[in-house]
């Protein structure tokens, strides 16, 4: 392994750069053939790791990204990563092969398709190999984005866009929650590296954030892996092209959540909450998905719900596998089965679900419809597709001699073993788990039969089909055939598969229990003996399932009992509508567009915050000693000022108001005189004169005052706010005056005004010398104001002139 293998994660996305050029330059060869090289090369490359990892090796390869923040692309290759990497590249290769025959090279925008697909491949490889939580999150969001693009591939269709948006909303929601969880985790474990977090797990357990981190990370995993109640995006994502559904929504992306749970099991397994949540939600999803799969009429929708259900199954097994951390000794052996079963079923599911999606795509492609009510009797026309579908469905139903049977047996074993566990109230509730699992298995059986037999057997309904059905070309069949063969092969050599792929993955999942893949001494056997509970349960599943399948027409009406408005989809839709209209209404409620309203907000906040701060800090103080004595001039000027202000407020005409305002200005100038500020008094006098002149200039163009009419309405609210602002400012002024914490610096100016600045007028010297910088910008402001006034008036005139010309 000379070249660092972290680079290989980026191979697909780098290849994606040249795809559009290939698509434009080489018209007569399907672009998919070039793309096919990438996953095949990667598959072969990753396959070379298997032997070493089997011997307990792990590989780490690091590509620094932001070293100062300890963030890097670290690829960590252990049993779990290699298994997922092989699934991603292997099924990726098959899906690309399938898509070459599925997508037409003339009609479809293949450049887009393969770019998105390759982007997705990089993202998935990144997720499963990342050791750094931040780069894990980066790749996680990249899968959301590329999956969004792939679902919306036929973007001219409404349903595609809806499905893409829905999956985006839900998975990105989960992704962000997960980011929160990962950040908390890195705070607790003091590292971004997952390996180090696992090593530090003892310090993480019992930390304040521990529970929160569990919930957040599980939210991420549950949304991505379509667990209850977040599964609703998956059926809508079926608007994507079938290769996408087969790849993303059966084999890879939806398993990212499972990967996450498996990866973090060593960190969280000691938590009761973790076991309950993962197992409980998993089982609920298993039951829910299998129950509602029978209701569907669209082939891909059946498969979508079945995927949801199978993901729930694996999730519950992952939860059960965490139990192994709590038991020791003799008992431990039986709980270790769960981890093995989870990984084993994960492999099986990827195989048979991939093939089933491909068959659904073939049926759609060759008949023109996926509606199961219009299909039937295709067995004799499409024998190969039927065979593949049959193998896939039987494996899904858990019947021998297919891989699914073995994993279902292991599943039942694990669920039964939960009864033995006597921590966390499991001894009282333990019996519920196998019962739910058993019922869900029955429904799984029913929908598997429903899928294959309603499509391929029964009466032919050729008149209802848009196309005349015929068998698919060999190229399209090749991928599902390969997958179907694998499904059968797994049944006959389960222990080889277990040894090569499952055991290393189990070791990665349960570090601390095992140290070497050879330690996992679990043997899969197809045969448990006549009286083994697993065998009896399977018999029961077959018997009840067959009965239910045969009487399906009678009880399928049960599904109509649930009204449309009580479904989770309606909940999602109304949430979206509420978000849009509710926010709209909210912003329309407070953004009135009236400046008066905004002033009310601003003043209210100023009053609340300042008086609040004043009283919370206990900062209010009145120190009578610091007050100067009041003289008669001051008192008189104050009275004049107050009279003038009242005149402004209650004036009935504008002219009165303007003149009263002038009165206010001049009395302020008087105050400046009284308080010995000659410069200010001078300036105030002149500026008041000039501004009154300006007011008078503008006065005659203004409309007459409406609110200053005869019946003047006093708005109580405005009065209150104005009074409150006044009182607040008075209080602050009093407090500020009464508590001078540091002496004024004015003494310095007095001392140095002549020696340093050669001046006698402190005010002017401060203005032009000590603080000339402020003055510079004040005159700039004045200049800008003049230019503003000038341009506003002149531009308005020129526009008027222009409109005159045009008339």
């Amino acid at each position, binding site marked *: 392994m000379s070249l660092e293998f972290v680079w290989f994660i980026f191979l697909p996305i780098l290849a994606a750069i040249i795809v559009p050029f290939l698509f434009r330059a080489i018209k007569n060869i399907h672009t998919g053939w070039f793309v096919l090289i990438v996953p095949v090369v990667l598959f072969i490359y990753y396959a070379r790791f298997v032997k070493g990892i089997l011997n307990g090796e792990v590989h780490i390869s690091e590509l620094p990204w932001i070293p100062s923040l300890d963030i890097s692309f670290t690829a960590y290759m252990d049993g779990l990563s290699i298994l997922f990497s092989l699934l991603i590249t292997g099924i990726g290769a098959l899906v690309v092969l399938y898509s070459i025959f599925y997508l037409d090279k003339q009609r479809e925008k293949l450049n887009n398709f393969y770019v998105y697909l390759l982007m997705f491949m990089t993202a998935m490889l990144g997720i499963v190999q990342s050791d750094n939580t931040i780069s894990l999150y980066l790749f996680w969001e990249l899968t959301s984005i590329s999956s969004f693009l792939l679902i919306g591939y036929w973007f001219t269709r409404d349903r595609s866009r809806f499905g893409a948006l829905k999956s985006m909303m839900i998975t990105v929601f989960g992704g962000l929650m997960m980011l929160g969880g990962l950040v908390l985790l890195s705070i607790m474990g003091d590292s971004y590296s997952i390996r180090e977090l696992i090593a530090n797990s003892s310090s993480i357990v019992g930390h304040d954030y521990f529970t929160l981190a569990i919930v957040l990370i599980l939210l991420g995993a549950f949304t991505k892996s379509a667990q209850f109640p977040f599964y609703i995006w998956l059926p809508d994502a079926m608007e994507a092209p079938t290769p996408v559904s087969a790849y993303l929504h059966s084999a890879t992306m939806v398993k990212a959540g499972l990967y996450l749970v498996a990866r973090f099991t060593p960190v969280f397994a000691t938590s009761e909450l973790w076991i309950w949540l993962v197992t409980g939600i998993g089982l609920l999803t298993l039951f829910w998905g299998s129950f509602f799969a029978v209701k569907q009429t669209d082939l891909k929708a059946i498969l979508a719900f079945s995927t949801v259900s199978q993901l729930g199954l694996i999730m519950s097994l992952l939860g059960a596998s965490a139990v192994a951390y709590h038991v020791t000794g003799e008992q431990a052996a039986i709980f270790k089965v769960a981890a093995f079963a989870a990984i084993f079923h994960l492999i099986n599911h990827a195989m048979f679900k991939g093939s089933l999606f491909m068959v659904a795509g073939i049926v759609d492609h060759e008949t023109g419809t996926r509606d199961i009510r219009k299909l039937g009797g295709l067995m004799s026309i499409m024998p190969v597709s039927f065979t593949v579908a049959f193998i896939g469905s039987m494996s899904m139903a858990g019947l021998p001699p297919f891989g699914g049977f073995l994993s279902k047996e292991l599943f039942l074993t694990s669920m039964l073993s939960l009864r033995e566990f006597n921590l966390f109230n499991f001894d009282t509730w333990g019996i519920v788990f196998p019962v739910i699992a058993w019922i869900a298995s029955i429904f799984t059986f029913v929908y598997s039969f429903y899928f294959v037999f309603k499509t391929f057997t029964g009466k032919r309904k050729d008149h209802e089909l848009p196309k005349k059905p015929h068998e698919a070309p060999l190229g399209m069949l090749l991928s599902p055939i390969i997958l179907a063969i694998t499904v059968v092969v797994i049944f006959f050599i389960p222990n080889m598969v277990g040894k090569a792929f499952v055991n290393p993955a189990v070791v990665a999942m349960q570090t601390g229990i095992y140290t070497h893949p050879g330690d996992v001494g679990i043997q899969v056997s197809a045969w448990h003996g006549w009286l083994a509970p697993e065998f009896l349960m399977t018999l029961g599943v077959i018997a009840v399932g067959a009965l239910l399948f045969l009487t399906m027409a009678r009880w399928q009406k049960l599904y109509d009992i649930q009204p449309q408005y009580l479904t989770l989809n309606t909940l999602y839709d109304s949430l979206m509508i509420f978000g849009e209209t509710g926010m709209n209404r909210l912003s329309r409620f407070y953004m009135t567009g009236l400046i008066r309203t905004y002033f009310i907000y601003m003043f209210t906040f100023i009053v609340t915050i300042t008086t609040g701060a004043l009283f919370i800090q206990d900062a209010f103080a009145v120190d009578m000693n610091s007050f100067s004595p009041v003289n008669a001039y001051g008192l008189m000027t104050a009275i004049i000022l107050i009279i003038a202000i009242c005149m402004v407020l209650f004036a009935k005409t504008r002219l009165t108001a303007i003149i009263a305002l002038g009165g206010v200005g001049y009395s302020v100038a008087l105050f400046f005189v009284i308080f010995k500020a*000659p*410069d200010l008094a*001078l*300036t105030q006098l*002149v*500026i008041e*004169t*000039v501004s009154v*002149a*300006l007011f008078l*200039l*503008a006065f005659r163009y203004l409309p007459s005052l409406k609110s200053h009419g005869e019946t003047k309405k006093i708005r109580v609210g405005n009065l209150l706010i104005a009074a409150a602002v006044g009182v607040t400012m008075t209080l602050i002024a009093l407090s500020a005056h009464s508590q001078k914490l540091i002496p004024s610096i004015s003494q310095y100016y007095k001392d140095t005004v002549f020696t340093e*600045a*050669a*001046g*006698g*007028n402190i*005010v*002017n*010297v401060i*203005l*032009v*010398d000590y603080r*000339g*910088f402020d*003055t*510079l910008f004040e*005159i*700039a402001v*004045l*200049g800008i*104001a*003049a*230019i503003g*006034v*000038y341009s506003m*008036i*002149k531009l308005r*005139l020129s526009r008027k002139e222009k409109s005159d010309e045009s008339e």
Partner: protein
Amino acid sequence: MKANDVILQTATKVVFFIIFLFSIHIFFAGHFAPGGGFVGGLLTTAAIVLLLLAFDLKTVQQALPFNFMIVVAIGLVLAIGMGAGSFVFNVPFLTHAFGDFYLPLFGVTSLHTAMIFDAGVYLVVVGSTVTMIQSIGGES
């Protein structure tokens, strides 16, 4: 327009110069006595406003044929140039210098670079206010 404003116009002709001289006085006195560029500028404006009141806009524009926007620009350039000039002597922006110099007509006079800065202020104030009044008044 204004038919019978003889008294006002005659008085204005005298008073204008008195106000103008007062503004100049106040401008120069600013460093030691109350006053300075700002008040001086405003007083000059007040003088011009008086002209505007007594005569009409066109007459005033003919009498004072300046573009007052350019006056604003000159004032700003003066103020900033004065500040930037300190860089030549390797001292911080807006550092003033002063000293006593012998001038031909005035004899020994105390000169201060703050005066140049204040002249900038003066010009900006005059330019801005007159521009505003002319634009608003000119619209009618």
